[in-house]
């Protein structure tokens, strides 16, 4: 696949031997791992809160860039650029979050003649403005959620537009928010009454009764496509990820490939994603997010112009190192593989381990990790099946200053069922002490019958709240199994020492 070169695309064959990673936590460690393997010298930056953090310990060199508050350190463009200059870093990898989608940062690097491992500033800007991005995608033939956003608010016209879109549709107040003036309309007969109701609500809530109409997706799934473009006009997709299991728009469990995909749908979504990227002269790793409806229709949501948190599931099924691809593209090389050479092997899941308390409305948790270990051997699992991308180790302090994600547990299996079984075993083998985490919640999700049966949509957690959050009820047989193991052990100890005296023990 090819596209015309943009004049602002990077010069070819940019060489650098030192890479600064402008991030922290697991992604900084993960990027440095590949950089080291490629023979690059690594530079970490850190705030006062992270002076002893794992990413600082693992880097060849580390530079303090400011106090704990992110806006004064990891988000401080000047501080990061200065750190790169001081250390002779020829390139900066931004990770995700922080400065990764900041056009002004990319422009500052261009001026300083430092390579940004990511897309050009113009591509970030093109996708940063959501409504103009949608208009551009529409022009490029990328499907959008059908809708009417016009100024003509005549009742009959609105009804005709709804009929054209096809039911069910969602009526939304143009000035709306918080669910007010919003209604699902199931049929043409019900349209007028719903419109009248929405107008009344909207007028009362916002002093404005203009409406917009969108196709209502009954069971939408969040399916995103990993794309990669180089500065030579080549673009490929590395298949899709299903990230439907979300809590308040935060992804919790991701998997690749998306269950139930046909080769035709995969190719259609992949081609649309590459088209979206090439429309904005994209270079590097990007993710095009779609809503996938139950009938196989898919609609563009947005494009993330960076490496995603969940990129490892793509790496597990393709066998490719996406950070290596990013670095090679940043060096001006052509993409390592063509579309035809990319294949899917098996299935992969990623579970995000957060320092947060599900029983207290997911309140972020802090403290010292007295133990952080994954006992793969005890669980009978191999390193080819399980990968732990972590930014922490035993003894590390989890502070309140940054995102509470501690690590990502990534598994691979020959198929979805095998990978899911491995995920459950790996979650059980993960021992985290000292800081409350969502580990048990992840276990509940991954053992949920609805998840196993691929009853996926973006409201999965909401729909299954009753079972996901209820205190776990063990069956008497489960208590009996645990008790027998404890009793047997204790009886053996008593027999060998002092019969006649009883004991009570906590097991």
């Amino acid at each position: 696949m090819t596209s015309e070169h943009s004049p602002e695309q990077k010069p070819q064959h940019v060489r650098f031997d030192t890479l600064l990673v402008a991030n922290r936590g697991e992604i900084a460690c993960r990027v440095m791992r590949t950089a080291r393997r490629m023979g690059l010298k690594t530079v970490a930056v850190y705030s006062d809160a992270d002076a002893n953090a794992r990413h600082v310990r693992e880097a060849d060199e580390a530079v303090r860039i400011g106090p704990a508050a992110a806006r004064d350190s990891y988000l401080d463009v000047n501080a990061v650029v200065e750190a790169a200059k001081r250390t002779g870093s020829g390139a900066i990898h931004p990770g995700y979050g922080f400065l990764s989608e900041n056009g002004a940062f990319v422009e500052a690097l261009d001026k300083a003649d430092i390579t940004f491992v990511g897309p050009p500033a113009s591509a970030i800007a093109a996708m940063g403005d959501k409504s103009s991005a949608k208009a551009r995608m529409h022009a490029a033939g990328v499907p959008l959620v059908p809708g009417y956003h016009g100024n003509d608010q005549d009742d009959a016209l609105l009804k005709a537009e709804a009929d054209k879109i096809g039911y069910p549709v969602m009526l939304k107040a143009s000035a709306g928010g918080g669910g007010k003036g919003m209604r699902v309309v199931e049929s043409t007969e019900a349209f007028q009454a719903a419109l009248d109701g929405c107008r009344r609500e909207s007028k009362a809530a916002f002093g404005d009764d203009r409406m917009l109409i969108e196709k209502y997706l009954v069971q939408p799934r969040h399916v995103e496509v990993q794309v990669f473009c180089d500065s030579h006009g080549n673009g490929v997709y590395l298949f899709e990820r299903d990230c439907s299991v979300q809590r308040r728009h935060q992804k919790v469990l991701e998997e690749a490939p998306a269950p139930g995909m046909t080769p035709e749908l995969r190719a259609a979504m992949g081609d649309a994603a590459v088209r979206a990227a090439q429309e904005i002269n994209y270079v590097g790793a990007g993710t095009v997010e779609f809503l996938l409806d139950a009938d196989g229709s898919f609609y563009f949501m947005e494009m993330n112009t960076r490496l995603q948190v969940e990129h490892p599931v793509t790496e597990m099924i393709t066998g490719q190192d996406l950070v290596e691809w990013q670095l090679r593209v940043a060096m001006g090389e052509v993409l390592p593989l063509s579309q035809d050479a990319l294949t899917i092997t098996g299935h992969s899941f990623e579970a995000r381990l957060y320092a947060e308390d599900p029983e207290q409305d997911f309140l972020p948790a802090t403290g010292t990790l007295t133990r952080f270990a994954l006992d793969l051997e005890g669980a009978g699992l191999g390193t080819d099946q399980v990968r732990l991308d972590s930014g922490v180790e035993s003894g590390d302090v989890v502070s309140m200053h940054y995102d509470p994600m501690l690590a990502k547990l990534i598994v691979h299996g020959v198929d979805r069922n095998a990978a899911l079984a491995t995920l459950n075993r790996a979650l059980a083998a993960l021992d985290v002490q000292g800081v409350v985490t969502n580990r048990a919640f992840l276990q509940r999700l991954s053992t949920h019958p609805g998840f196993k049966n691929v009853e996926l949509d973006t409201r999965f957690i909401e729909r299954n709240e009753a079972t996901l959050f209820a205190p776990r009820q063990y069956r008497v047989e489960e208590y009996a199994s645990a008790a027998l193991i404890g009793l047997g052990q204790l009886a053996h100890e008593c027999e060998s020492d002092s019969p006649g005296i009883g004991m009570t023990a906590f097991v």
Partner: protein
Amino acid sequence: MRKRLPWDRHDGFRLNAPHTIRIALCDPDHAKDDTSDQIVVVEGTRSSGAAPWQLTFNGGNVDGQTLKASLQQLQVMQLQ
């Protein structure tokens, strides 16, 4: 110095071991709770080392239930 007895390693004690032993079970996620209504106390009795355990459950969703159970040794077979 007194010989260290096995139950010195555990909190609480004493019924009629080794034939009557009481243990408490809880979900590992609540192991550090000061109070947990999910703790289940299991009293196990048996007449001899070879006999199955008579288990009585107190607490949780299994309160008042009893059953007889034993652990079986898994047979390990040598493959030729």
